[in-house]
């Protein structure tokens, strides 16, 4: 099974791994912090809806926010305690904007919810039932994107899953949480893989791991039973950033390309992170919802870099302290790796489901001390681009805000891996330009839809008015004809009586207008009283006045 023929993707980078830095020793379990700050959105999709209120006591594993949309995930209490606030808090998000969080003052009891449903005989369950369990456990992709996992286990009508892939590539430098997870929880990962395989009825399973993690590869291979070896293959793939990208890993493992704007399932492949598999095993077999994860705390500004098992909602600073952060040296705190991570400004920002790494960098490690120079068209970016785009053309058109051209050069095939900006000798923040272009195009699309709707409404109104006009004309014409016919029978009299009738109608209407009061519908009592008084005065005057 080891002689698998691997595919290859264009470009990519050989980066120094720095992984050993945080792989010394065991994964330590972080103590329960006094307060957990749990964002209601830790995933891609709609935020969850809080189902607890301030003052409620919650137990470990209790649902605290439920999902209201298809693309969403519920949130559970990571430990027992009391809900002390539901308020805006700094959350890890590229925008840097705060979001609603449920704050739990922990009680240190770590008291579990009773009657957790466990299913050790998962293969007896219906795939739909498994998806429901995974959905209700709040499991999202733990590799970084945080897409609700149950949706990716739902192949859809008429779609067969040939290959189920577990992504253990972990290609970003510094991060080692998946590597350690594979070493320490290999059996759970295989159990989770079996559950997922049953849920999607996949034929073959592949686990792709970069060859700079031999211990992880060995651990997973050792934990396979003879029967499992028939359908699970643990594949060592060359270490090259961004092999951990879904499209890139699938290309390497199967030599198949996901067509542009399509999903892996469209070529019969489903891909999940190894951490997600372990979470699935926890949820289905042990009834533990997703409330914690392995987090790598590493970089050049911590004295004791290592991996921690941390509860969601733990403030980042709480973990940094445990790793003995050098206060003076911390130039930048990142969530994620150095290539795609996002900057964290507030150290009280909580750990969430997608927090794989806290990377501390000293000022001298950071890229942006260079002033961007003009592009010299050297083409290094195109050489490095794993999507085989022409980054400098994209940059050119993004800068010119010619978004049609940007789309002609396939900006939406960009996976924002950062290879182009990394190699650029002019130090141009290329990815930032593509994000800008994408955001602008989405905004234009929304504006266009809005204006399209407005135009449709306007056109429909025009149409109705036109129709009404025609109908009115038609009616008038018919009436005229009728009148003419009637006139033909008895000319003068009919005319006369019609005029008289009309006059009478006008008179009656005038009378009514004169006497009827106006604007008296929504009056306060005081106003009503005033009106009555005024009426009474008018009445009196009318009586007194001899001219009326």
């Amino acid at each position, binding site marked *: 099974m080891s002689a698998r023929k691997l595919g290859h*993707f*264009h470009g990519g980078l050989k980066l120094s791994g720095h992984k050993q830095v945080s792989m010394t020793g065991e994964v330590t379990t972080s103590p329960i912090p006094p307060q957990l700050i749990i964002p209601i959105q830790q995933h891609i999709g709609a935020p969850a809806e809080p189902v607890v209120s301030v003052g409620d006591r919650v137990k470990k594993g209790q649902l605290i926010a439920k999902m209201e949309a298809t693309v969403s995930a519920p949130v559970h209490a990571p430990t027992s305690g009391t809900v002390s606030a539901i308020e805006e808090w700094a959350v890890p998000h*590229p925008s*840097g904007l705060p979001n609603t969080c449920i704050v739990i003052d922990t009680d240190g009891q770590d008291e579990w919810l009773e009657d957790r449903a466990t299913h050790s005989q998962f293969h007896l369950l219906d795939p739909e039932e498994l998806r429901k369990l995974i959905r209700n456990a709040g499991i999202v992709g733990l590799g970084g994107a945080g897409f609700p996992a149950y949706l990716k286990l739902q192949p859809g009508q008429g779609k067969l899953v040939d290959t189920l892939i577990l992504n253990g590539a972990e290609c970003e*430098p510094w991060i080692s949480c998946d590597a350690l997870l594979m070493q320490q929880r290999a059996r759970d990962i295989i159990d989770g893989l079996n559950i997922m395989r049953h849920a999607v009825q996949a034929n073959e399973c592949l686990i792709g791991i970069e060859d700079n993690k031999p211990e992880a590869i060995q651990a997973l291979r050792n934990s396979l039973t003879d029967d499992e070896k028939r359908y699970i293959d643990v594949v060592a793939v060359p270490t090259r950033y961004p092999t951990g990208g879904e*499209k890139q890993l699938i*290309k390497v493992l199967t030599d198949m*390309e*996901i*067509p*542009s*704007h*399509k999903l892996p399932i469209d070529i019969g492949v489903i891909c999940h992170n190894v951490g997600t598999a372990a979470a699935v095993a926890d949820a289905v077999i042990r009834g533990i919802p997703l409330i914690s994860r392995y987090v790598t705390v590493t970089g050049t500004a911590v004295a004791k870099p290592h991996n921690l098992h941390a509860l969601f909602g733990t403030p980042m600073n709480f973990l940094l302290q445990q790793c003995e952060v050098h206060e003076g040296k911390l130039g*930048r705190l*990142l969530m*994620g790796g*150095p*290539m*795609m*991570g*996002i*900057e964290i*400004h507030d150290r009280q920002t909580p750990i969430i489901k997608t927090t794989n790494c806290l990377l501390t*960098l000293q000022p001298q*490690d*950071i*890229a*942006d001390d260079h*002033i961007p*120079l*003009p*592009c*010299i*068209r*050297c*083409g290094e970016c*195109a*050489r490095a681009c*794993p*999507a*085989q*785009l*022409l980054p*400098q*053309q994209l940059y050119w058109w993004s800068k010119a805000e010619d978004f049609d051209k940007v789309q002609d*050069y*396939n900006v939406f*095939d960009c996976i*924002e891996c*950062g290879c182009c*900006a*990394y*190699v650029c*000798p*002019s*130090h141009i*923040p290329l*990815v*930032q330009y593509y*994000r800008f272009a994408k955001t602008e195009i989405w905004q234009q699309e929304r504006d266009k839809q809005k204006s399209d709707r407005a135009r449709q409404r306007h056109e429909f109104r025009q149409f109705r008015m036109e129709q009404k006009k025609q109908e009115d004309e038609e009616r008038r014409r018919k009436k005229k004809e009728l009148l003419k016919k009637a006139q033909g029978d008895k000319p003068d009299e009919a005319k006369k009586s019609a005029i008289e009738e009309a006059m009478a109608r006008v008179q009656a209407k005038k009378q009514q207008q004169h006497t009827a009061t106006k604007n008296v519908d929504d009056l306060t009592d005081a106003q009503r009283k005033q009106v009555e008084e005024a009426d009474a005065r008018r009445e009196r005057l009318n009586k007194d006045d001899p001219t009326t």
Partner: protein
Amino acid sequence: MSIISSPHIHPHNSISGVMLNVCFALIPGIAAHVYFFGTGLIINMFIAITTALLTEAWVLKLRKRPLRPSLMDGSALVTAMLIALTLPPLVPWWIPFIGSAFAMIFAKHLYGGLGQNPFNPAMVGFAVLLIAFPLEMTRWVHPQLPDTYHLSFIDYLRYSLTSLLPAGYNYDALTMATPLDNMKIQLSLGQTVEGLQSNQAIMGKVAGKGWEWINLMFLLGGVFLILRRIITWHIPLAMLAGLALIAGISHLLAPNHYAPILFHLLGGATMLGAFFIATDPVTASTTPKGRLLYGFCIGLLIYIIRVWGGYPDGVAFAVLLMNMAVPTIDYYTQPRVFGHDRKQ
């Protein structure tokens, strides 16, 4: 609060690093040039570099741009060095001055500075000089050896400043047609390739005395640049292949009328053009297939100009002509994007 975009790390690369590598790679060629033609090149290079930096500073000031980043990026330095390398060693000071200033002002900054110019600035500078001052630009001194130098550094310097030859010398004694020029003129007068090449004092072993060594040294520098990943192999290889192909076919059909492949590959400015001029990233094609096409066409054009055109060498005009075609080449040679069909 600023929003900083990933990636957050960066290798220690820079434009100035690229340019310094190019300068370094030019050294063997410069050394060979000085060895065979004397120290005139050093004087010309000094004037060209000084002019380029001063002119660039002046234009940047006019354009209200910061001086330091542009002057320090090394691009003006490389342009000036390339201009000096295209000049005959024995020229008055205003030749490198005009070439360098024109390249900086008209070919580079009027288009918006580094990265914006469609034409190779050094080649524009050279072309202007060649057209405006053909006499000064075609007086090449004899290739010499150190022990038989006619012209010392002082002689060159005096000539540069005053246009006066050393006492007792005239131009006829000092200068001669270049091997390429010689080949072109004599062939048109009915000589044969074999007969011409037998005169090794002018034609050297394969491609002209001195010239073949200079070309080999530029080839050495070029290989260094490829190994350092400063340039890719596509353009040089395609250009040499294009030149070799058409030269080979011609020579095969009429060996006495068309010089052999090596004469063209190691003659004139071929290697300088292949590795240092056609590869100028700003003005060259940027796609892998486009680079092959771009280089190949330059190779063909060099031969066409050398053999059937009005000038003995054709590197500069071939490069400038293909510069014009770059946007079109780039447009039609876009690589297939991941996940897209082969046919776009």
